[in-house]
C-alpha cells in the first residue's frame, strides 16, 4: 500500500557538516499491516514518518501511497504525536473534532463522530474538559481519537506512548491493539522500545543511525489477536526470542558508535 523508494534526506548541521538523516531507504508497507519502526535516537525514524505524513520535504526518492506520489498531507493519513499536540484552549470534544473541522465537516456531524471516538478511547464524560485538566495518558487518548475521527486508512504514530508512565503505557498498548483488531488499518508506529515494537507489530523495521538506514526487517511470529492476553504473549518464547534478538542488534549499533571505537 505504501511504497518508499530510495528515500534520502540530508541537511546541513549546526557545525556546517552534512547530516544524512535518511539514506536510500526502501520500504513496502502492506494494507492493514501494523508496522513498527525501532531504532536508536537520531536514526531518522521520526524524519521517515514525517516524510510519509507529507509534513517535510526530502532530497531524493519517492513515497507512493496506492501508487500515487505523496506531495503533502492527505485525507487517507492521520498522525498521532509524541507530545500529544492538543489545542490547550479547546475542549476534548473540539480537539477530537479538529481534523474533521479542517476538512469542512459541520458542527453537528463533527460532534457526533467525535463523541463516538471519545467513547471508543474510554473518555466518555470528559467531553467538556480541557487538555490541562487531563493526565498524560488521557491526553494521548484524545490524540488517538482525533486521529481516528478522520477515518484514516493509514495511522502514523510517532512514539505516541513515549511521554506517559509505564503503567499507562501498557494500558494504552492493549487498547491500541484492541482498537486496531476491531477496525483494521495500516499503522506505522515509531518507538524506541523493543518490547513495544514486538508486542504491537507484524514486522519490526530496525533502523541504524548516521546515516539513517534500514538495518533489518524482523517479522514477528506472534498470533493475533493479541489484545485479549498480552501477558501470555509476553511469556511466549517467540516474544522473548525476538525481543532479545532486537536488543542484540541494537546493542551492536550503540557499541559501534561509542567514541573509543570511532577513534580507533
Amino acid at each position: 500500500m505504501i511504497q518508499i523508494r530510495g528515500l534520502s534526506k540530508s541537511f546541513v548541521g549546526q557545525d556546517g557538516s552534512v547530516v544524512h538523516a535518511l539514506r536510500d531507504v526502501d520500504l513496502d508497507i502492506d494494507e492493514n499491516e501494523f508496522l513498527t519502526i525501532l531504532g536508536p535516537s537520531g536514526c531518522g525514524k521520526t524524519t521517515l514518518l514525517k516524510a510519509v505524513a507529507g509534513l517535510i520535504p526530502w532530497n531524493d526518492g519517492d513515497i507512493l501511497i496506492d501508487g500515487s506520489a505523496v506531495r503533502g498531507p492527505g485525507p487517507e493519513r492521520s498522525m498521532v504525536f509524541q507530545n500529544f499536540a492538543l489545542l490547550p484552549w479547546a475542549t476534548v470534544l473540539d480537539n477530537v473534532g479538529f481534523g474533521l473541522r479542517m476538512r469542512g465537516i459541520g458542527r453537528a456531524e463533527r460532534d457526533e463522530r467525535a463523541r463516538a471516538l471519545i467513547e471508543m478511547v474510554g473518555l466518555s464524560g470528559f467531553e467538556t474538559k480541557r487538555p490541562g485538566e487531563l493526565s498524560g495518558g488521557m491526553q494521548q487518548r484524545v490524540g488517538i481519537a482525533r486521529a481516528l475521527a478522520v477515518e484514516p486508512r493509514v495511522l502514523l504514530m510517532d512514539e505516541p506512548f513515549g511521554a506517559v508512565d509505564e503503567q499507562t503505557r501498557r494500558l494504552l498498548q492493549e487498547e491500541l491493539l484492541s482498537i486496531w483488531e476491531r477496525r483494521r488499518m495500516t499503522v506505522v508506529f515509531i518507538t524506541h522500545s523493543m518490547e513495544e515494537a514486538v508486542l504491537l507489530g507484524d514486522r519490526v523495521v530496525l533502523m541504524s543511525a548516521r546515516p539513517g538506514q534500514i538495518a533489518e526487517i524482523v517479522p514477528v511470529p506472534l498470533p493475533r489477536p493479541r489484545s485479549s492476553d498480552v501477558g501470555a504473549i509476553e511469556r511466549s518464547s517467540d516474544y522473548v526470542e525476538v525481543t532479545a534478538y532486537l536488543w542484540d542488534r541494537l546493542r551492536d549499533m550503540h557499541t559501534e558508535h561509542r567514541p573509543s571505537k570511532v577513534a580507533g
Partner: protein
Amino acid sequence: MSALVERRGATAVRRRRLSWRRLPAAPVSLAAGAVLWELIGRVADVPFFPPLTTVLGRLADMVSSGQIIGSLGDSLLNLALGFGISLAAGLAVGVAMGRYRKVEAALGVYVYALLTAPSLVFAPIFFSLLGEGRGSIVAVVVMYTVFIVIINTASAIRTVPGHLVEMARSYGARETQVLLRVILPAAAPMIMAGVRLGVGRAVTGMINGEMFIAVVGLGRIVTQAGGRFDGASVLAVLLVIIAVALGAVALVQAVDRRITRWVPKTTKDGL
C-alpha cells in the same frame, strides 16, 4: 474547664491577628494614600498641591456644572477611535510580522524606531497635516498605542509552538485555518498582554494630544486650569483621567479573561 476557656481566648487572639492579614491590600493602600495626600496638602499649603478634600470639592463642582461630562465625552471618543484603529492595525501588522519573515524584515525597523521615538514629537506634524480637529488627536493616540500592540502581537505569534502548527497541517489545514484556528488562539494571552499595555498608553496619548494639539476634552480643562494656576482643578481632572484609564484597563481585562479562560490559573496570576 479554665484551661479550655484560656485556649479559646488564645485562638480568638490568633484569629484577630490573622484578620489583620486578611484585610484587602488595595483599599488599605488607597486609604493610606488619601490620608497622606490630605496631610501633605495641608502642611505644604502650595497652590499646585491642594489637599484631597479641596480637590474632591472642586471635582464635585465641575461635575455638577456639566463641565466634566461634555469634555469627558469628547475625550472618550478620541480614545475609542484611536485605540480601535491601533487595535485593528496593530493586530494585522503584528500577525503579518510574526508569521512572515519578509514582512518582519521590511517593517521591523520602522516599528522599533517609532516605538522608541517620543510619540509627542509627531504632534506638530499631525497638526500641520490634519489640522487642529479630532483627526490629529486620534493620530497621536494611535502613535502612542499601535507599536506596542504590533510588537507584542508579532512576538506572541512567533512563540506559538511549532508542533501545533504541524499538527494542523497534518490534518490538511490551509494557511487561513492555521492562522485562525491555531496560531491566533495560541497567541491570544500574549497578544492581550500587549493590548493591556496599549490601553494605558492610549490614555496618555489622548491627554497629551488634547493638551498640546487641539485644546478640547479633558486636556483643555487641564491646560486652562494650569494657565490660571488652579491646582485643584488640574488635580480634579487628573482624578477623572485616572478613572478613565482604570476603566479602560478593566474593560480590556474583562475581555482578556473571556479569551484566555483556558490558561492555567497559576501562570495567569504570574503575568
